[in-house]
């Protein structure tokens, strides 16, 4: 999809844990409507980057600007309200709940009825339940999760859990979707499905996607923009072709010692 204005600006982010510098002065932009892949070896700081973007970690330095608003110090919930959704590297589903309940939690920001109305099961609360269910059913259909609505998520295979997590992120109708290694540990078939979903989400709803992925063929196929991290530093940033031919990136991936 053609790149628009920057919807997300990462400006000179530094994040330190005790002695470890997870991110060191990282800056890059994500354009509206693009699919941006963040790649890099294990421990490069990719997940930390996503965590900074949606407010789970607060960086020591730098700014994150989303839709023109400085959200560096916002709480995850506030950022979610701006239209950001996300999936986790190690599955962030609610293990004690069914698939349907998990996906319904994704609609939590659309709820207007109070807990009293919900407890009494009257008026607005009932209506919302049906409305949200309809939105959830749409996503269930889109991601082919029909058969497992009432299954506890803990009982599902890994690949399906990842898909349920994507569904939970999607029902929030986000303008930007962060995906942390959505295809790791999947077989070829599942990977293909997942990349198709990403492309479809991007095309059909115009959702900007930032995803972390190790499989280079997938990255080259679906992304418009690639950012490469290594040891907390940015060593590449550009179109897939540019990055592929970047000497630093080639070194990092071939394991040249620094």
């Amino acid at each position, binding site marked *: 999809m053609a790149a628009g204005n920057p919807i997300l600006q990462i400006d000179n982010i530094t994040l330190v844990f005790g002695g470890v510098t997870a991110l060191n002065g990282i800056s890059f932009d994500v354009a509206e409507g693009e699919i941006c892949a963040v790649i890099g070896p294990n421990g490069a700081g990719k997940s930390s980057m996503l965590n900074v973007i949606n407010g789970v970690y607060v960086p020591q330095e730098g700014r994150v600007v989303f839709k023109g608003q400085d959200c560096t110090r916002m709480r995850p919930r506030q950022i979610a309200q701006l239209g950001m959704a996300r999936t*986790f590297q190690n599955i962030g589903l609610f293990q004690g709940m069914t698939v349907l309940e998990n996906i319904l939690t994704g609609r939590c920001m659309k709820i207007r009825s109070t807990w009293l109305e919900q407890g009494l099961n009257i008026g607005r609360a009932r209506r919302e339940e049906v409305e949200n269910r309809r939105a959830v059913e749409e996503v269930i259909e889109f991601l082919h999760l029909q058969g497992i609505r009432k299954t506890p998520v803990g009982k599902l295979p890994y690949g399906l859990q990842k898909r349920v997590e994507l569904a939970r992120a999607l029902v929030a109708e986000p303008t930007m979707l962060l995906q942390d290694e959505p295809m790791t540990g999947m077989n070829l078939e599942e990977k293909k499905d997942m990349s198709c979903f990403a492309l479809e989400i991007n095309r059909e709803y115009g959702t900007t996607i930032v995803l972390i992925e190790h499989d280079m063929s997938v990255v080259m196929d679906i992304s418009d923009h690639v950012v490469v991290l290594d040891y907390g530093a940015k060593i590449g940033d550009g179109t897939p072709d540019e990055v592929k031919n970047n000497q630093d990136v080639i070194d990092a991936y071939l394991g040249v010692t620094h």
Partner: protein
Amino acid sequence: MGFDWVFFTELIVGGLMSGVMYSLVAIGFVLIYKSSGIFNFAQGTMLLFAALTFVKLTEGGVNFWVALPVSMGTMVVFGILVERFMMRPLANQSLLSLFMATVGLAILIEGLAQYMWDSAIHGLQLADFLDLALLDPVNMTIFVVDYIEWLDILISKFDVFATIVAGTMILILAVFFQKTRTGMSLRAVSDDHLAAMAVGIPLSRVWALVWAVTGIIALIAGLLWAERVSVSFTLVEAVLKALPVILIGGLTSIPGAIVGGLIIGVGEKLGEIYLGDLIGVQGIETWFSYFIALVFLLFRPSGLFGLKTIERV
């Protein structure tokens, strides 16, 4: 002028001494928390069980020096049984399940202790025992004279004795778990169960060891505490008093348990006397230590020495 320094010092010393006693109980909690990530609810009843075993043996005429190792042996067997029949079958379940199992264990032990022995309240005059055991019978005066005087400060001799015993126990344990191989493997287990098993540390052996050691701690702590609160169900509640201690120190830290014990011991005494006066009500010591702990936790959510971690996702 108005401030009574002697009294104040007496309070501080008394507070420090009961703090050491808290620390001893707290270490029992910490060991189990470190090795399996749970708060051992049965700690209090273990104290009761151990103390009762000892009391009944001596009441039955068994010599002090025989009763002590026999009670210890009982607690070790107990630890091994707990590992085999409770911890191992529950190894892969949630922490909440494990915690609840210790709740079940607490009821089981309470019933068992009272079934095997009885549920009457026993006074345990450990001081008398010690006089009989340690001194020639002609001259049994060391512990029977209750107080020593030092710079005008009155200190209960038994408290001094208890402090020394508890302090020594704590030191031994600290050295054991910081310096020996077994201690190291405990620390490895507490950091990461799976990783520890992967490098060949036998989880069940560590657990059995920890429960056995905790049993011995329970015995010593039970005997020392029993002098103050009698051997009965109150012992169980007294142990809940150790909860703020470990929370202040951090559930994972042995030094934390020691410092936490001292803070609570002193804080409680000072609060009882001075704060009680200030706000004009009595008896606040029942909840005051929890409030001290809460204040600490608000500033340091994982305790003074607990591992500060930022959760990863």
